[in-house]
Every structure is written in C-alpha cells, then in structure tokens.
C-alpha cells in the first residue's frame, strides 16, 4: 500500500485555484521530487498534507486513513515530519535544545514541569545531530547558525519522531551547489537506510534528475507529468511549462536557477 495518496485534492485562495484536483501516491522508501514553476501550488500541497491548511475538497490518505483537515500536530503524531520553505527553528534555544524539544514532544513529555530539559534525551539528540553532521554545533545558539546549517537542524528535528513520511519544501533554498548536493545526498542516504518516504521540492534540475526516484511536475495547481527522470526530461508539456517551446533541459543544463 502507498504511504501517502492524494485523491482529487483541491484548494483555492479567492479566485486562484492553487491546487486543482491533484492525484498522486508515494510508495514506502520512495524519494519523490515535486517540481514546478513558482506559484505552481507546491507549498500549498505540502501545507495541506501536514495539516496547516484545510483542503477545500479531496482526500489525503496516510496508510489508507484520511487525514485531510486534521491539525498539524495530529498529523505529526501519525508519523509525518516536515521542513519549511523558510526554515523555522526555535531561535532562543541552542541547537541541541531544538532537537530535544522535538524528542520531548514525541515522548509525550511536553507538560512536565519539574525535571530540567538539559539532561533529557541528550544522547538521542546528539545522535540525530550526528546524522546531519551538526554534532559540533550542539550547544551553540541556533540563531547564530548559517542558513544552510539551520536547514540541517530542521532535518534533525523532523527526524525526531521517526517519521515514515518526510515533507521537505525547498530544503536547499539559499544554499550553494556543493552544500545543496551534500544535503540531498544525506537525505537520500536516510531514505535508503531507514526506509522513509520523502516528498521534496527543489529548484535545481541537476539535483532532481540525479537523486529522485520519481518526479511529479505541477503547473498551475495541476499535475502535468509523473514519471522518472527520463520521462520528465522528454515530456513536451513539461518543457513548454519550463522554457516555452523550443528549448530543452539539455540546453539548460548547468545554468539552473
């Protein structure tokens, strides 16, 4: 069975149909890229899947159960982790406290009033930071980090509840090419090691074509293509959306935005 399946998912803002009857599914352990021009509705899709926005209509099946309209925290408890397009961490906390907070919430200890946080889940948090290569920064204030590092912390936070599905909205936005490849490689490794399914959006075609198991193309709120790198590269509709007619991905190679 698919980990996640969207059925005719729709959302409009005023007159704008941001997401229009979108259907697709993710299999266990799949590394699925969602691409599309700005304003295609990618973030809106993510926001509906993680519960931040209620869909107007359609179903979101997580392991066969409809989660459409549930609160973000309820969906998180069912094993969906998320990173944001604009990275969001707790700026008044240290790096490790950010991860500890997620672990505390995962183990249902949010309302504990007595034991100091400092000693709780520290080993596990260090372990998660190690996995994203941020162990050395554990006790630094998170607001001092470079943006790329904040994205890694977000990833460690998102992994805290051992999710079966990870949603990553533009995880590499604002990163240089090397850092970008590093992060995606890291995520890909996690997918393979832990069997997590990942849905991510990404502007760099190099990255998408190199790492994604499958690619979905969204334009104006609709899915216009769904397939592997080869299918997408050769798809006429996709080329039209991205470059207007006449150009191809081959010509664009290396000068991606």
């Amino acid at each position, binding site marked *: 069975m698919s980990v996640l399946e969207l059925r005719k998912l729709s959302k409009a803002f005023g007159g704008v149909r941001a997401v229009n009857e979108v259907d697709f599914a993710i299999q266990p352990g799949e590394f699925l890229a969602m691409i599309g021009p700005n304003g295609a509705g990618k973030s809106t899709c993510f926001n509906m899947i993680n519960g931040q926005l209620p869909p107007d209509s359609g179903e979101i099946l997580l392991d066969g159960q409809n989660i459409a309209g549930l609160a973000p925290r309820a969906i998180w408890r069912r094993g969906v982790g998320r990173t944001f397009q604009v990275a969001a961490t707790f700026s*008044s906390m240290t790096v490790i406290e950010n991860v500890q907070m997620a672990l505390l*919430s*995962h183990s249902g200890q949010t309302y*504990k009033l007595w*034991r100091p*946080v400092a000693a709780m889940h520290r080993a596990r948090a260090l372990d998660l930071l190690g996995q994203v290569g941020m162990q050395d920064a554990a006790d630094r204030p998170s607001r001092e980090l470079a943006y790329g590092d904040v994205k890694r912390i977000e990833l460690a936070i998102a992994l805290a509840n051992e999710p079966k599905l990870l949603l990553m909205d533009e995880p590499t936005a604002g990163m240089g090419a090397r850092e970008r490849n590093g992060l995606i490689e890291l995520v890909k490794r996690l997918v393979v090691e832990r069997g997590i399914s990942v849905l991510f959006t990404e502007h760099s075609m190099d990255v998408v074509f190199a790492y994604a198991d499958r690619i979905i193309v969204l334009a104006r709120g609709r899915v216009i293509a769904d397939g592997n790198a080869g299918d997408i590269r050769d798809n006429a509709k996709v080329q039209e959306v991205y470059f207007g007619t006449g150009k191809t991905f081959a010509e664009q190679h290396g000068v991606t935005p």
Partner: protein
Amino acid sequence: MTFSAFLFQALNGLSTASGLFFIAVGLSLIFGVTRIINIAHGSLYMLGTYIAYSFATKIGGVFGFWGGIVATALIVGVIGALIEILLLRRIYRAPELFQLLATFALVLVFNDMALWIWGPEDLLGPRAPGLRGSIEVLGRRLPEYDLFLALIGPAVLLILHFALAKTRFGRLIRAATQDREMVGALGVNQAILFTSVFALGAALAGLGGALQVAREPANLATDLVAIGDAFVVVVVGGMGSISGAYLAAVIIAEVKALCIGIGVVDFGFITVNFSKFTLVAEFLVMAAVLIARPYGLLGKPQGAVRSIAEPEEPIRPATPMLKMLAVIVLAGLMGLPLLAQTQPYLLILGIDVLIAVIFATSLHFIMGPGGMHSFGHAAYFGLGAYGAALLVKWLAVPMGIAIAAAPLVALAGALLFGWFAVRLSGVYLAMLTLAFAQIVWAAVFQWEGFTGGSNGVIGVWPPPPFDKAWVYFVLTLLLTVIAVLLLRRFLFAPFGYAMRAGRDSPLRAEAIGIDVKRVHWLAFAIAGGICGIGGGLFAFAKGSISPETISVGRSIDGLVMVLLGGIQTLTGPIVGGSLYAILQDTVMRQTEYWRALLGIIILVLVLAFPQGIVGAFAALWRKRGGGP
C-alpha cells in the same frame, strides 16, 4: 416585564450604544491605519466631557453648550494631532509594547492634568438647551436628549462611511488599513495621513465625551472605564471596522439595557438582580463573539501582529556567581528584621518590595518566555487578594487557609480568562487581558453586597504571631522565594521550553506536535495562580483592600517593572520589581501628582530608549567591549 417596557429599554439602549460607538470608533480607526493601540483614547474621551463642561458653564447658554460641544471635538482633535506629532511619530518603529506603554503614560499625565485643572469632584453639566424636555414613548417618558443621542451615533456612522468611501482621504485610510505595505509606499503622505487619522479619531472621542456632558458627570475615573469599554467594543466589532464598532456597541448596549429592564427576578428559591450583571453580560457577549469569530463580528483575520522578538539568548542555569549573589541578598533580607527595632518602616517597605517581586516575576513568566503581553495582570492579583479577604470576611477562615486559597482563586480566574486570551496574540491579547481586568474590577465594584463595593474589605489582619511585622516579613520572604524558584523551575523544564517554542515559532512548534494554545493557556493560568499568592499576602499586609487592588494602574505597574528590569533575562523582573516598588514608595509619594510624574518618567524612558531599556544597555555593553 411588559413588551412595551422592553421596547422602551431597547430604545434607551440605543443612546448608550451611541456613546460606546464614539469611544470605540476612533480607537479602531487609529489602530487600523497606524497599528498603535492608543490607551490614552479613554483619556481623550474624559477630557471631552471636562472641556465641554467648562464651555457649558463658563460661557453657558445655547452657544456655550452646543457650540462648546463642537469646539471640544476640535480641541481634542488638535490634542490628538499633537500626541501623534510630538510622541508617537518617534516610536512607530519601537516594539509595540513600548508604544502601548507610551500611550499609557499619557493616561497618567492627562489624569493628573484633569485633576489639577478641574479638581477631584464630579462635575455635572447643565441640561441641553432646546432638548430639556421629554417625549412620551410607549406610555413612558423618554428624555429628548437621549433620543438625540440615539440618532447621532448612526448619523456619524453614515457620514464616516461615506467619507471613507468617497473621498481621497477616506480611500487612503482604507488602503492603509487593508494593506500595510501600501503605507510605506505612500512616502511623504504617510506623516500627514497618520496625523490626520489621529486627529480624526481623537476628535470623535472628544465629541463622544462632550455629548455625555448633559447626561453624566465628568469624573476622573472615566478614562479607564472608557478604554475598557472601547476595547470590548472594538474586539467584538472587529479591529478597523467602523460599522463593526457600531454593531458591537448596539449589541452590548442592548444586552445591558435588557439586564436593567429585567431587574429583580424572583426564581422562588433565589432572587437575582439582573441589573447587577450589566458588566458580566458585556463579558459574556465578548466571550461568545470571540469563540465564534476570533477577529470580531466584521473584522478580517489580520496577519500575525506579534512583534518581531528581539533575538534572545538561550536560557542557562544560574552561574556560581549569580547563586552566590542570591545567597547574599537572601541573607541580607533575613537580617532585615534585626533592624526592625530602629526602623520599623523598613519591614513594611520590604514586604511591599517582595510582593512586587512576585507580581513582576509572574507577569514576566508569560510576557517574556511566553510572549503574551498581558495588560491585565492585576486581575489575578486582585482575585487572590479578594479571594483571601472575602474568605476571612464571610467564613472567618484562618489566615493560613485564606493565603493558600488566594492562588487557587486567581488560578481559576486565569484559567477562565486565559482560555480566551491565548486565542489572540500581540495587541489583541493585550486588549483582551486589559478588558478582563476591567471586568473583574467592575464586578468587584458593582457587587457591593458581597465585596463591599468601593469601600472594599476591611479588618483583614493577620493573627498572632503574624501581627508582628518581622514575622509577617519572614512569611512573605519565604513565599516569595518559593514562588520565584517554582517559576524558574518550570522554565527549565519541558513545559517552559514548550512555552518558548510556541513563542519563537508557533508554526514549527505545532509541526512537532506541541499544542501551542494549550501550553500558553496553562502558562497563563500558572502565572495567574502565582500572582494570586502576592494578592493574598497583600491583603493581610495592608489589613484592607479596595477595588484599587485590581486597577489598570497596577497592571501597568507590572509592565513597567518587567520592562525596567529587562524582559529577556530571568532575574530582570526581580530587579525591576524591587526597584519600582522602592521608587514608588519613596519618590512617588512625595507629590500629589505622582501619577503624572510616573507618566513623564515612562515617556522619557520610552523616548530615550526606543529600542527598549535592555536593548540600550546591551548595546552600551557591547560598545564597551563587554561580553555578549
């Protein structure tokens, strides 16, 4: 009640509604455009009544009365423009808390100014020339002036509505209200727009106050009552919506009129006087509206108004040096009773300081780490104080039980009010908490049979051995230390972290399973409960309490304490609370006009350190090459 009597009350309610509308509409307009909550709006209303009184009595006649009302509106409009130009223009970029504080400082200054010019007595103006009579409606006599009031509200609403829809100025106001970015794009026009809107809003408040001159006496307490009412109306009607303001004013006034109309009802087993519940009814209306529509009846959801928090350091356990300092201070305080022989007053001041520390620390708990700027923390202080005092008065319970019950009463109140408050954020939360505090104040004030009304509760003295000042001081010290350490403990525990998580990034917090509203609600309740300890101690320390215990002034004192000490450090409120209590005791009592003095001190602080006092010191520290 007969149907005609019912209709008559409804008609009467419309004249009250006009009054509420005038108070609220200017506040709403000003907020819509400038995003500043002008707490001094109630003061402008109050000044309106006083100025119109002077016109009506000094000049007199038709011209003095009616001409005076128009002149009053213009004068108050000019005062509004001056406030904008001289004060607010300098602090548009300051944290919103400072803006609120600045306008509150004006409340203090205006209040003492009115005291100085017009004296402390209530002043009732003459009846309106030309509208002295009454007409018969449904077999009852309705004063013509009330009818006039009932009509002028909707008339002004219509005029405003067309002015906003048809004129260039009106279009600018609407554009600015709807789209913040727009205002920046206005460039030079922005200054003019802001000043005019302030003048217009102020003039409307002045007009509203002036129109009351023939109906109600000018009174020095009007400013805070009016701002409390205005907040309720604006929250119910929706920020920035003038039609919403009128709609809300009508609903609230009608519900109040209905309560008065129903009057005393005998249910057989119990007799209820509904006219005592006008203020509670107001609260219920607001509660119902906020549940159904968090942004008011005609308001639109606003973007996050929570101010962008200054970057904050992670909290760290106390350093050895801080621990040492705490021990020294405690030892010093324990030694204070030894001085009691020669300087008995020192202990009284010591008790005041400790109670202030409880008050400030509990407020800081939700304001700093929780990011909830409560403008009504006095409510929980008052609930604690009254809870303890009334238990002694009616049930003659021993002091121990009364002081133990104080935080529970406050906790119950904070649970109730907090549930609503955490649904809002930023200035909305500030207004709502202030409105709640006003409601507690009014309930205590109105429910004379139970609370003693304005006389308060007297004879709440501690029994031996606590009647000795030094013993009571030691008890206060003990409870203060417990309260402060408890709050500190909570902050270092998962709950405190969850609270800060919800403040730092509600989005991220929800995305990792934290129920931010629930966490903040419980934090609000805890802060209220702890504050109640201070209230209970206060009641026995003074031996008597009055509604003044719950006044807006006390809520604001708390804000000043927290800001004085620094909102971003955990020791800040302890220092700020102590400092402020000592200041108030020594300096402020020197003059009858201490309110104005305090207001001026706040204004100077705000204008001198628009980035916040702590920010200023931190900057200084960095410049000197000190640590981070």
